[in-house]
């Protein structure tokens, strides 16, 4: 039996004005377990807390009930008092007789009556309280960054800078991501390679950072502080530590008609390839689907020309298992497919291209060495039409577009238009827009410069259809301001395709038990106050995996994610919340209902041997809760048909005791 002390607070006149505190403490004196009951002007004051401590000592109290303000206000205070008096902090219950009684009721009789009932409920609960100790778990001081684009790079550099080891997993043969494909960057027009490649080199040279390129995360287990991650390092058939990146193999490879992914298929690469000159790691990779040697054992030229002896046709996928304290998701984005937008003739004409293809077309390291020419005939285009919002803000066409604004298109289209006019003053450049959205430092000024200084023709209206005719593209569009339908003969059309999260994000979210929205963007723990954390503890978000972002925004979020990771990794131990679910192995059926409703993936199952009364043993599947992952919502307790799942601090019998006390 508990020895309970009841402490009724007057809160000056806040409570005492409507509740007869003397009557309350008198009435509660005779409740089961109560050995001491008193009231005082300000329970939360120094003197009030001393009174509690003294009573605990003098009356050997094992539980405390404070009838006072909301537990949201002073539960923490009184828990500290309990600890100071030598009690477990979870042996304290609060009866909220201020916010939920004296302040909302005017009648003293009714208020007093209710306060007594609320006190009884708290006493009934505290009688069933047990001391709780928060679990502690160690923190592995290493972080994993999934994705090696600018988001992943920046996060990794910042974490490494604080002295923690970081592994970066990138599924392509090189880090760099989408930014490596870009030409210039708005609004300052510095070249992407000039600002990105030094960072890539920093990553490569940082002794705290390991790069797993051409690799994928295949399994994640564990929880915050201790994620056990399996990484598959795909065979690239080149020894990474031996290859010097000289490129002799690439030059001699006879298979040279493989569409080059890095240039979005606008030119070809060899079966053995280095994606681009500044690739990190600068190591060749053999495409197993294209290489003759790997397909049918004939060729082997690359092996012969490699002075370093780096080629290894027998290389196998490598499985790496590592433990991490924190995981940062930086899986990035892709432009959506334009195949389904029949009206824009993307599949019919080579001269209808996406903006990312335009980037490669104008990039000095691109397929045309930066010469802006038509992909179809290599001729210089005179009339260019840029179409914005292709697939963005598309509500009716879920099967081909996206409902959201892709955010970056307005600015890069202004950039493309401006650069075209700058380099080729003989061109006519039209931009068809729905709205021009340019919030951001120096962004609107940039867009206005395109119009005012460079003579880009911005037309308010959408393009309705594009029909290839001869060597022209017949563009039919609206000019809503002039209230005219325009018919243009264009040489090149550039579509500002909506962007979507990378397809690897969805399976990764499942592995991480991190939640996603309907568009497959990762959800943040709080949209305003915790924007770089996922609801799953220890998983952080960086870059466009969380939503469309431009480079400055991505870099700032990457830094923010890094600082959250650092904040976690500096801790030696994590202290949990002891109010977590607990499974009773004896009554658990192992039916998985609880696992299905757990938002955190905190429940797993194990086959456990039980000794039966007849001395036989029986192996049963039973649930086990990871207290470091459980957040204590209690969804599992109701899903459990056998009542085997319960929640510390809010046990079934405690809540029912409260119900009984209130309804008695």
């Amino acid at each position, binding site marked *: 039996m508990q020895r309970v002390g009841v402490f009724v607070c007057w809160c000056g006149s806040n409570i005492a004005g409507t509740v007869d505190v003397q009557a309350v403490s008198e009435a509660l004196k005779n409740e089961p377990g109560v050995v001491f009951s008193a009231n005082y002007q300000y329970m939360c004051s120094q003197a009030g807390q001393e009174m509690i401590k003294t009573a605990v000592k003098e009356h050997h109290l094992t539980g405390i009930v404070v009838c006072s303000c909301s537990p949201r206000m002073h539960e923490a205070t009184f828990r500290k008092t309990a600890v100071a008096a030598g009690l477990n902090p979870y042996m304290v219950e609060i009866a909220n007789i201020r916010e939920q009684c004296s302040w909302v009721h005017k009648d003293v009789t009714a208020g007093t009556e209710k306060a007594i009932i609320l006190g009884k409920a708290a006493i009934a609960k505290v009688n069933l309280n047990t001391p709780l100790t928060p679990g502690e778990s160690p923190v592995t001081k290493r972080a994993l960054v999934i994705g090696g684009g600018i988001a992943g790079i920046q996060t990794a550099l910042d974490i490494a800078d604080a002295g923690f080891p970081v592994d970066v997993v990138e599924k392509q043969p090189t880090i760099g991501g989408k930014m490596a494909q870009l030409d210039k960057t708005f609004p300052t027009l510095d070249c992407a390679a000039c600002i990105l490649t030094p960072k890539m080199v920093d990553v490569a040279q940082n002794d705290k950072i390991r790069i797993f390129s051409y690799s994928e995360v295949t399994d994640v287990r564990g929880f915050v502080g201790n994620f056990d991650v399996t990484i598959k390092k795909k065979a690239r058939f080149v020894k990474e530590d031996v290859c010097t990146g000289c490129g002799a193999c690439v030059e001699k490879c006879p298979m040279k008609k493989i569409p080059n992914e890095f240039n979005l298929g606008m030119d070809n690469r060899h079966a053995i390839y280095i994606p681009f000159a500044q690739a990190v790691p600068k190591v060749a990779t053999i495409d197993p689907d294209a290489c003759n040697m790997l397909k049918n054992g004939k060729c082997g030229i690359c092996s012969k020309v490699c002075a370093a002896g780096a080629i290894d046709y027998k290389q196998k996928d490598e499985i790496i298992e590592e433990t991490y304290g924190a995981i940062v998701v930086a899986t990035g984005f892709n432009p959506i497919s334009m195949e389904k937008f029949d*009206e824009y003739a993307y599949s019919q004409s080579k001269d209808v291209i996406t903006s990312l293809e335009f980037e490669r077309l104008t990039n000095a390291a691109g397929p045309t060495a930066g010469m802006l020419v038509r992909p179809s005939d290599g001729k210089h285009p005179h009339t260019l039409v840029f179409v914005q*919002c292709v697939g963005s*803000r*598309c*509500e*009716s*066409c879920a099967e081909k*577009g996206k409902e959201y604004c892709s955010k970056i298109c307005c600015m890069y289209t202004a950039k493309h238009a401006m650069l075209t006019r700058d380099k080729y003053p003989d061109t006519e450049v039209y931009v068809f827009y*729905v*709205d021009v959205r340019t919030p951001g430092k120096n962004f609107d000024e940039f867009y206005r410069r395109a119009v005012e200084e460079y003579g880009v023709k911005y037309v*308010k*209206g*959408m*393009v*309705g*259809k594009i029909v290839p005719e001869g060597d022209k593209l017949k563009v*039919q*569009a*609206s*000019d*809503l301001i002039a*209230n005219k*339908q325009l018919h243009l003969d264009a040489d090149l059309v550039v579509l500002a395709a909506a962007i979507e999260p990378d397809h690897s994000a969805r399976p990764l979210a499942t592995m991480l038990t991190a939640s996603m929205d309907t568009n497959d963007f990762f959800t943040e723990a709080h949209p305003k106050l915790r924007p770089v954390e996922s609801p799953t503890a220890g998983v952080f978000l960086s870059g466009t995996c969380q939503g469309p972002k431009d480079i400055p925004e991505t870099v700032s979020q990457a830094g923010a994610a890094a600082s959250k990771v650092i904040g976690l990794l500096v801790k030696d131990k994590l202290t949990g919340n002891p109010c977590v679910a607990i499974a009773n192995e004896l009554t658990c059926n192992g039916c998985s209902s609880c696992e299905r409703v757990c938002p955190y993936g905190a429940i797993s199952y194990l086959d456990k041997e039980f000794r039966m009364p007849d001395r036989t043993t029986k192996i049963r599947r039973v649930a086990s809760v990871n207290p470091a992952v459980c957040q204590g919502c209690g969804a599992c307790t109701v899903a459990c048909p056998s009542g085997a799942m319960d929640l510390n601090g809010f046990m079934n019998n405690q809540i029912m005791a409260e119900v009984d006390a209130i309804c008695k």
Partner: protein
Amino acid sequence: MKHNNDLREEILRMSGVDTAKCMKCGKCSATCPAYDEMEYHPHQFVGMVEIGEIEPLLSSESLYKCLSCFACVDRCPRGVAPAKVVEAVRLTAIRRQGANHMTANDVPLILETDTPPQLLVSAFRKYTK
């Protein structure tokens, strides 16, 4: 400024279109093959119905220039369906005149082997109700 709220409500109900969804991109008008024939263009139908300015539409020849090809319905990124708005305004005009311009019996008389069936269907849709 809402001119004729009752009529507006009726047209919205008849067409089943939510004009508030329109983001004023003009893709409907950009895609319209009858654009140059029309005094008021598809996006204007949506916009004018939205603000209740419907009388000018009712008296405009544009009503009968719409081919009901539904290209605008197909292309609209917001699912607004301008052709259905045009259709509803047209219906309103026809109802006011109190008669159908075409009955099923008229169809065989104008039926020619090389008439595209789609034309007949859309003409029938346009001039009946």
